[in-house]
């Protein structure tokens, strides 16, 4: 979590983006000068399927307030079926996190194609706002990592 000059909470958000669609979508958003919150840190992965649950939990542990995973639309996976597995895995993981009392709005899976620069920006904007409304993540952080 970070705080700006006005003492306003600015969420730290990690976005895992698949190389073939969503990362290109983010690129397009940039090229089109579409604004999305600067607190979103993009991590490029070869496929959304590359993201294992440990990545998500480690991000939270190290101070992320929200984690979003973006991949190709179902059916469009560069590796044919990676995102179908992602869909099941993340659905299960996020449901488990919610079961442990972690707010649902802190986690999200979104399909963003390389052509959807606008969707990328809008999704990030929306996600950041939802996370901001929740306030800082206190339930999954590692206290040692606090500044």
């Amino acid at each position, binding site marked *: 979590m970070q705080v700006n000059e006005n003492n306003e909470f600015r969420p730290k958000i990690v976005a895992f983006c698949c190389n073939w669609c969503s990362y290109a979508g983010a690129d397009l958003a940039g090229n089109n000068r579409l604004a999305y919150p600067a607190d979103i840190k993009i991590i490029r992965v070869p496929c959304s399927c590359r993201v294992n649950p440990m990545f998500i939990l480690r991000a939270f542990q*190290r*101070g992320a307030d929200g984690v979003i995973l973006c991949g190709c639309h179902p059916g469009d996976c560069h590796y044919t079926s990676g995102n179908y597995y992602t869909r099941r895995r993340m659905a299960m993981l996020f449901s488990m996190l919610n079961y442990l009392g972690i707010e649902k709005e802190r986690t999200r899976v979104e399909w963003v194609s390389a052509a959807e620069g606008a969707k990328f920006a809008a999704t990030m904007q929306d996600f950041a706002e939802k996370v901001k409304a929740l306030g800082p993540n206190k339930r999954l952080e590692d206290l*040692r*990592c606090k*500044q």
Partner: protein
Amino acid sequence: MREVMVISMMKKCAKSNLTALLHALSVYAPLYLPVNGNGKDTRAKYTRYEDGMVYSTDLNTVRSAKDFFFPQTENLVNFKVEGKNIEIIDPRTEEEDFILFGVRACDFKSFDVLDRVFLSEPVDSYYASRRAHGIIFTMACTRPAETCFCTTFGINPAEPAGDVSCYMTEADLYLDAKTERGEAILAKLEDLLTDTDSTDIKTVEDQKTCIASRMEKLPLAALSTEKFGGDKLDTLFDDPRWESLSEACLACGTCTYVCPTCQCYDIKDFNTGHGVCRFRYWDSCMYSEFTKMSAGQPRLTQMQRFRQRFMHKLVYYPANNDGLFSCVGCGRCLASCPISMNIVKVMKTFSEEVSDNGSK
């Protein structure tokens, strides 16, 4: 560690006043005492006292009292790293007095076992500092369990020692100061305590007698240390029975972590993103990585690791510490091992003459 006073000036507190007494103690210094859990596990655990809490009369806590002197994780030193430069920061703050209430005789004896490790030269100052600030109220065990075998190691649950030894009866709590520090703290509780007379002394003596007779009747009362000790290396180390004893061992660390006398630890660095903290934490000789190093792994089988744990408690430790065993008979490992293999079974097995075609 501290001088034991010879003269005893026992005090008494009506049990109806126990809450007030605990409150007064908690005002004097942070007070930790066994309290029953409120979740899925209702067994007692040491908890920092807050008003409204009820002292648990459970025989023993799930985790031992060693946590207070040798916690499971502890920050040793912090570093700030910048370029080629390192800054070393001691993270400790001034330790304050604290009170441990309701420690059983076995756990109290475990402090002695740990002291001989941590307070021998070079002294572990983290441990030493907490040890010096811990004020210990022990509690005699009126209802020892079937898993208790402290008497095997010469511990008397009716004389639990500490700064103040406590005896609880139906109506009263008797407090017997055993050290100057115990005297001092009882003096501060004057309003809540009354003096004892010969009837009281008899009540306590009767309780002690009762405890002694109960101990004699316990199923493990006859357990003997005869076959063990610092000079028994040759007879025990190569015994083939280690194989069958350890065959079902899962290599988890439960026995080690619930044990009041296990003291092995590991040191590791954690990068917090803005510095490095070097912390130590309990480790277990039951784990396969315990002795693993880049040059190889000296203990390759679970049998070797299993043997190490019991040899250490029953042979190696006594060899270095005037015959004192590194077990206090608290029975925690008997209650918690997933496969119910424990020091009692090990001791009994080796106390039998070799039978069963030499291997079982």
